[in-house]
């Protein structure tokens, strides 16, 4: 069991380490690029693979993510959230681009290399969010598993498959309003599990 002072110390250490890494990235220190990869590649790859479902494509997307992170390190604002949260925003965006390009005709595959229409998401106007503690991750996973099946499916289709609410409604053969409500209910329950807010 991790008590609050211990948790604060662990987060302080993580924050200082991350600050040094960010300084290195901004100054173009090549060693920092290696540290960035070593520290976050598995998390990034896990999410990307979950979305695209193919190792070859996942590798391409992960390469894009880290190249863009290296090129745009100056844009990262630590006051808006953690480095991993920033990377995951980029990773999800690029992975969904890849997935959407795959859904289109093969002769439009080249769209992957073009500018993503999600590029705006790389400069989120809102908090990236703080890092998720290990226990919170466990609680989130348990909460996700405990969601009613349709709420869970709707939420996973939106997050991991990048479907719009209209597309989800079509897939599940449910009314649009029902899908919106299910997604909302599901995510509020997940939030309550990790933030303790009443649903």
């Amino acid at each position, binding site marked *: 069991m991790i008590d609050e002072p211990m948790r604060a110390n662990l987060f302080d250490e993580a924050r200082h380490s991350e600050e040094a890494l960010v300084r290195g990235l901004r100054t173009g220190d090549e060693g920092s690029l290696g540290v960035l*990869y070593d520290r976050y590649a598995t998390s990034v790859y896990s999410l990307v693979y979950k979305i695209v479902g193919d190792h070859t494509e996942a590798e391409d997307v992960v390469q894009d993510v880290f190249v863009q992170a290296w090129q745009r390190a100056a844009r990262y604002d630590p006051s808006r959230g953690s480095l991993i949260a920033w990377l995951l925003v980029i990773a999800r965006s690029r992975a969904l681009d890849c997935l959407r390009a795959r859904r289109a005709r093969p002769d439009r595959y080249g769209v992957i290399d073009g500018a993503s229409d999600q590029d705006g998401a790389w400069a989120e106007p809102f908090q990236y969010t703080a890092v998720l503690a290990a226990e919170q991750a466990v609680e989130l996973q348990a909460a996700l598993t405990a969601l009613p099946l349709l709420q869970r499916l709707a939420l996973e289709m939106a997050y991991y498959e990048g479907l719009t609410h209209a597309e989800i409604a079509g897939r599940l053969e449910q009314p649009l309003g029902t899908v919106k409500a299910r997604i909302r209910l599901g995510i509020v329950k997940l939030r309550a599990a990790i933030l303790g807010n009443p649903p």
Partner: protein
Amino acid sequence: MTLQLEAHREWLEATTLLALGALEEPDRETAEVHVQHCQECQREMASLQRVLTGLGLIAPRQAPAPQLRERVVTAALASARSSKTSEKSFKRLTQSDSFAQSKLEKLPTSPLQAPVVRRTRTPMFGAAALLVLTLALGTYLTQAHVNHVEARLQEASTRTSAAERHAAEAQYAASQAQSVARVLAAPDVRHFGLIGLASSPTAFARALWSPSRGLVLSASNLPAPPSGHVYQVWLLTSQGPISAGLLSLTTTDEGSLIAQAPAGLPTPVGVAISLEAGGGATKPTGPLFLSTTSS
């Protein structure tokens, strides 16, 4: 007040979908405009982002291949050097232009020469220098662009066969997803909860069975089957266990099965999963790992 709360509840739903990127145009733009002017929705967006990051972090762990590290680092450093080289070259050319201009300004004028000739010669030389520099810069940029396009064409050509494979995979995945959705929406669907037995006490599974649309099953916390063995799903009926198919493992401890409902199948009273040797069996012979609790 009630109407306001109701209206804002809809905005909160829209904010949720906006955070997920699940809104289509023009709803997305409308929601973005609203959020920019609504502090409550801005706070909502910030807290939702935390959940979404959490969803990213709890994706099943997949370690990338070791050789990806070098590929990524090399690509990132090369991309940075490429952009710096372009900048330096452009700066060098424009600095040369400025240097030439500064030298021109220092050329001595002779009171013996016709001022008209002097005045026209200098601008012509400057214009010629500028033209040469512009052509050189244009040539460099054109060559760089050609190189860039060639590199992209090479990448595209190597991905063509992969694209065809991906299209087939995507079609299969789409048909699987459609099958799941149909079972979920079936009016005659029954739900079965399976619990782990002695061989796997922490395992659990959910099964949805529709006589008209088939079976969808999802299992978690299963131990990895030994080499040469598979998990097989059984529908328990009055006529004995009937095989529904083999569990397809999506990760090391999770599996799923989507199966059609054969005509004339007796109504299942339960579902079980056993470990079978080889490619499966006609009846359960191996140990049972999960069995239904019924719902």
